[in-house]
């Protein structure tokens, strides 16, 4: 029997397939289906401090707009005893997920203020989350701040949160650090129990008719796995076994999970494939993974994990620049693009 068990952030998981942050993991009903289909853990959608603040302020503004203006209408809404905020709902959802599921529930947080990160992290911890994912989603748009300063802030924040809560903390990173390996090692040194690679930024798009900037959310494509694969391969030997690594972005199939494990990930996280195909797709991924392991005679995830990392692959340079060159060489320009246009 193939042994799919793995360990992530000190949590014992039944398999390396984790449902990552998305609409499915924020809802008890769909989370239940994910668990039933074999998801080994779920990561809840990120709690955004900015959203909490915006939501509180805007809702209050809306409920109080027009109040005490006019003698016939001293206000425009009923008096509510309790109005749950985004935060309240998030905390409630943690509780609901915990009581509905017997797999670990990982809360995810994106803060905006130094106090906010720590305060909210503690609340998520008290609400019963099994681990906390810090979603370091910020764009370094300030030209007066150096990379070193930005990184120092991140590291301080990680240290503060780790010190403030007594549950495992994993940091989800974007791919745009100029010295990724160094930063990863320092994040671990700051106390992060693991890293999730990588955050997918939702890039804004333009509507050419209205010339408006429009938010666009596209589900991931399998090719996007290649970036985390490379970096996990590189970081696995750097960080050592004490730091968990999760691959995310582009995990769509059992083969993708296998790749993640091969380069050294402890778990592979998937969202887009589940949104496309439904929570039950977890079972398919698991079946494919089992088939692949059986075919390649791996008895356990532990055996697979890290067998093709930077330090264990046959060709470590392949994970570095050479890889890029070879890829270019392998590209053949279609003849149509080379032909001379007719006048």
């Amino acid at each position: 029997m193939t042994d799919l068990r793995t360990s992530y952030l000190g949590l014992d998981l039944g398999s390396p397939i984790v449902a990552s942050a998305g609409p499915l993991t924020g809802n008890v009903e769909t989370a239940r289906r994910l668990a039933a289909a074999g998801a080994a853990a779920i990561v809840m959608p990120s709690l955004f401090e900015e959203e909490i603040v915006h939501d509180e302020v805007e809702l209050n503004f809306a409920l109080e707009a027009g109040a005490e203006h006019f003698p016939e209408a001293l206000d425009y809404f009923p008096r509510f005893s309790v109005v749950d905020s985004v935060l309240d709902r998030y905390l409630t959802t943690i509780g609901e997920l915990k009581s509905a599921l017997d797999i670990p529930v990982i809360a995810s947080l994106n803060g905006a203020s130094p106090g906010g990160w720590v305060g909210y992290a503690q609340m998520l911890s008290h609400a019963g989350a099994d681990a906390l994912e810090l979603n370091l989603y910020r764009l370094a748009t300030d030209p007066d701040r150096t990379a070193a300063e930005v990184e120092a802030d991140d590291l301080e924040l990680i240290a503060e949160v780790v010190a403030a809560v007594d549950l495992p903390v994993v940091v989800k990173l974007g791919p745009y650090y100029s010295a990724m390996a160094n930063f990863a090692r320092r994040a671990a040194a700051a106390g992060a129990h693991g890293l999730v690679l990588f955050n997918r930024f939702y890039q804004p798009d333009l509507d050419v008719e209205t010339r408006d900037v429009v938010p666009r959310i596209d589900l991931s494509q399998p090719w996007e796995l290649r970036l985390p694969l490379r970096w996990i391969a590189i970081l696995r030997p750097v960080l050592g076994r004490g730091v968990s690594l999760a691959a995310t972005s582009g995990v769509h199939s059992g083969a993708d999970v296998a790749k993640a494990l091969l380069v050294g990930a402890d778990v592979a996280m998937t969202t887009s494939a589940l949104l496309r195909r439904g929570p039950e797709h977890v079972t398919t991924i698991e079946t494919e993974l089992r088939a692949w392991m059986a075919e390649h005679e791996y008895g356990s995830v532990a055996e697979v994990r890290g067998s093709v990392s930077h330090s264990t692959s046959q060709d470590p340079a392949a994970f570095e620049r050479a890889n890029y060159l070879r890829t270019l060489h392998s590209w053949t320009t279609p003849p149509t693009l080379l032909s001379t246009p007719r006048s």
Partner: protein
Amino acid sequence: MDESPGVSATTAPFACLDGNEAAARVAYRLSEVIAIYPITPASPMGEHADDWAAGGQPNLWGLVPQVVEMQSEAGAAGALHGALQRGALGTTFTSSQGLLLMIPNMFKVAGELTPAVIHVAARAVATHALSIFGDHSDVMHARTTGWALLASGSVQEAQDLALVAHAASLRSRVPFLHLFDGFRTSHEVDKVALLGDDDLRALVPDDDVLAFRSRALTPDAPVLRGTAQNPDVFFQAREAANPFYLAVPEIVQDAMDRFAAQTGRRYGLVDYVGAPDAERVVVLMGSAAGAAEEAVEVLAAAGQPVGLLKLRLYRPFPAEQLVAALPPTVRSVAVLDRTKEPGAVGEPLYLDVVAALDEACDRDPGLFTARPRVIGGRYGLASKEFTPAMVKAVLDEAAGEQPRRHFTVGIHDDVTHLSLDVDPEFRPARPEGEVQAVFFGLGADGTVGANKASVKIIGESTDLWAQGYFVYDSKKSGSVTVSHLRFGPEPIRSTYLVDEADFVACHQFGLLERMPVLARAKRGATFLLNSPYAPGEVWDHLPGEVQETILAKEIELWVIDAHRVARETGMGARINTVMQPCFFQLAEVLPAEEAIARIKQSVEDAYGDRGRTIVERNFAAIDRSLAELCLVDVPNAAAIDRSTALRLPDVAPDFVKLVTARLMAGEGDLVPVSALPVDGTFATGTAAYERRAIAQEIPIWDPQICIDCGKCTIVCPHAAIRMKVYEPGALEGAPDTFPTKSFRSKDIQGYSLTIQVAPDDCTGCGVCVDVCPAKSKVEVRHKSLDMAPVLDHRDRERVNWDFFGSIPPLARDLLPHGSVKGSQALEPLFEFSGACAGCGETPYIKLVTQLFGDRIVIANATGCSSIYGANLPTTPYTTDGEGRGPAWNNSLFEDNAEFGLGMRLGLDAQRELARTLLAGLAPAVGEDLARAILDAEQETEPQIFAQRERVARLLAALDGRDDPDARHLRAVAGALNRQGVWIIGGDGWAYDIGFGGLDHVLTSGRNVNILVLDTEVYSNTGGQASKATPRGAVAKFAASGKEATKKDLGAIARAYGNVYVAQIAVGANDVQAVKALLEADAWPGPSLVIAYSTCIAHGIDMSRSMSHQKDAARSGYWPLYRFHPTEAEGEHPFRLDSHPPSIPVRDFVAGEARYAVLGRTHPERAEHLAALVQADVDERWHYYQQLAAMERAIPHEPGPSVEEEAQP
């Protein structure tokens, strides 16, 4: 949620609340069925009941009452009647016209001797004008119904006598109307000793309840009520109830005595205060007793033989008790009525007292030293201020040898000379240690909310007594609020405004120029001013009059830049928590540290449940506040007059200069009787003189980018941004700054265009900028319209606006009206109303006036549109250069369709008369002219103009003739011109209270145009649910989200087949909206246009009002369609103008607090209802798609078409 109404008196003996809440707390706990309907000023009672029920609060018997909103007060009374008959304890709340609608059922309930209580916030009944304010004209109208009438004069009494009313009704079997004065008591916040459940149980014994239940209709012991009786027995049966009425006074007094034993607060049917040997006594009921008691105490203490008799039970009239309560020394009794009964010998209370005394003196001539003389006066109609000085004037009049038997007090009547002179200097001294404070603020800045909190803080956490009364102006945007607060060691009975304030705060610097802020300050008062100027600079920025008053009254001036502090602490425009600590600091009501702690606690109480952000921002503002407060070193002399207030133009009519201007300046109380119209008729077009200058930012036009689309002006709620198309020659004499561009049009060439803002009339809502599609090519965020600080542009735009006004409007027939730009080149005849900034209703009304305003009569249902349409001081409907414009009237809330139909019938009758007369006079006026008029088609603008010209010639031809036919024809000749009737109102009218009439008018076949401004709630009264409220939306009376789906009013109208029906949303499809209105006008039968109207009650950012409308259509939530009846076979009269839904409803509703909040309060229910809302939308789209494919023709006989038949 308000405090639980079941709280025990032993744990929380005092609370600060208003009269509505005080009465509702008792009514709720003693009822099983509560039927409600919104009406000012009683709505909050129903809202409390609904909130408590939604929160699961039980009544005295552990049951959550059934709270049901009905379609009208008549419906509420009917439901109440039914509940009572089935043995359930019931109540309802109402006012004014609402009470009038309940009267038929009230006769029934009383006739059946059924215990019940209606709590009434007494309010003026509409006559020459509507008034939402307090007097007794409504309850006096109910005095013949057989209900007992019990009057409360204070917030404490509103609670206490509510209980007495319920108790006495159950004991006596006579239903009770418990009344207290609208606004003065219903909205005054006072410190009140609360009643606990024990008190209620002590007054309402089980035996009384069980006796009531034993009479319930039940099939287990069937009886029959409601028989029809014949002349043989009806009379006797009517008299059979007499013993029950005879018993009422004693039962009420017994309940009052038991109440006193339970609570220590003693009341009588009548209570006398004053000199035991009084010779002059005032008799009155209601809140006026507070002011009167103060006056009488002062006068009696000064040795004057005067007294006051406060009447509590008015029906059955306690004649015996009243006579017994008067001192035997009384010689003159002055009875004050807060109502007017034109043509009566005297008002009702006066007549009752006259009769009571007459009967008593006949019975026992020795009762009084001398037979007392009774005089009667009117006071306080529609919350007219009533002060101790007025009471003194009445008592002085009563002292005369030949006092006026009938008089008025509180006004200056220079027509019938009934009014008494009042000594303005007479003021009872205030108790030692009392603080009186007045605060001037804007609705949006949180001043009133903070003051209510201050009253609560002081009243509930100290031994001091506290009172708050709040005066709002009649505008929904930029409204000014004045808060009157009193705090002191003695209970506060002063039922009138503060006029000798120890403390005055002005929360908005700009108000210094608009009103006499320091007029109510006493000598040596403290003045707290929110100033954008530093302490060293502020003096030079004060208007001269303010400087003079500060010096003359030796006022201490303190300033703080509260707007800056609020901005810096994330509070936006809400400066309340910055100003509040300053008040506590300066007024020294509480020690500073304690005050800060208590303010923070009140913030915590108010917002703690809604997350920390708001609480922490408030805390930051509070903490910053005192450090920023500075005392100003006031110079010795006032500077030159720095007043920059806008002045009326010289061309303003005399009425505007003499009357309107005083109303605008807040001096309406001083206007004499002779200055006012006798029948409520006012000239239109006066809003243009008001120029309130309330915007912080205004739109500025860049002609380089403009694409001439007209979208900005079509959506402007206040007609404050205008489009004019003109020949370039019109620019002669234009100021250099006047912007212009060439007008692009396929219809006319060589014209110019200007888009112009009225800088002093714009509210700064930003809707025009939101919809402007013209973006700069080089910098996309710069559009043809950008909001900009008003102070940077005002001077230039004022000049431009004045010049813009001098450009003649484009001839109406030059551009086709069926496009946005074509319609927007037309002059709006509805401008500068007091509607909310960003109002979704007013653009439709304005558009109607652009398209047809010179030839329509409007019937307007009561509601927002009647308030912003016609609330004094000014009127937004106006006229064109020819003096033509909409003629407007508001009848009632419930009858508007019928009212409009009547206008149509009248118009048709006059047209027929005119045609007949004209045919007869043809030889005299010219056969050709007569024939041309009679045969004229008036479908197009040129045809309409041609007919007007012919009718003018006809009038000229008739000039000087005085034969009867000619005189009659002159009077009705106007009806020969095409005129339309527009029936306008909101969804509360069309879907609920007025639906029966609306439905009837739709079937009339008559040519009326009905415009329903559908905000999906009762907007004017504060957002109560109507049958237009969609499923899943939170509204008042639907606090846990409306369960039932929205009524499809259009479907009902379409069912008739011959009614033109359109559903429009100007923000979603402006061209379709214009076309629909044109088609409605053109359709010769009834037309119904249902217009989606974004509203502040939706909980949206109103500057994005039109974007919400777009999303409403895109999601299928508000499908656009036009149903154009036709006689042609094979046609598809239903035209679906929307595209298939392209976004889920979820995306639309997520941005509206009315939906979003349900997810926070009832998450599971929100999910459940959200799914149903999507299903509603899907189903309706599917259904409408099928309708669009269906053929339908109006059944008709071969021959002339309906259109032709309907032509004159």
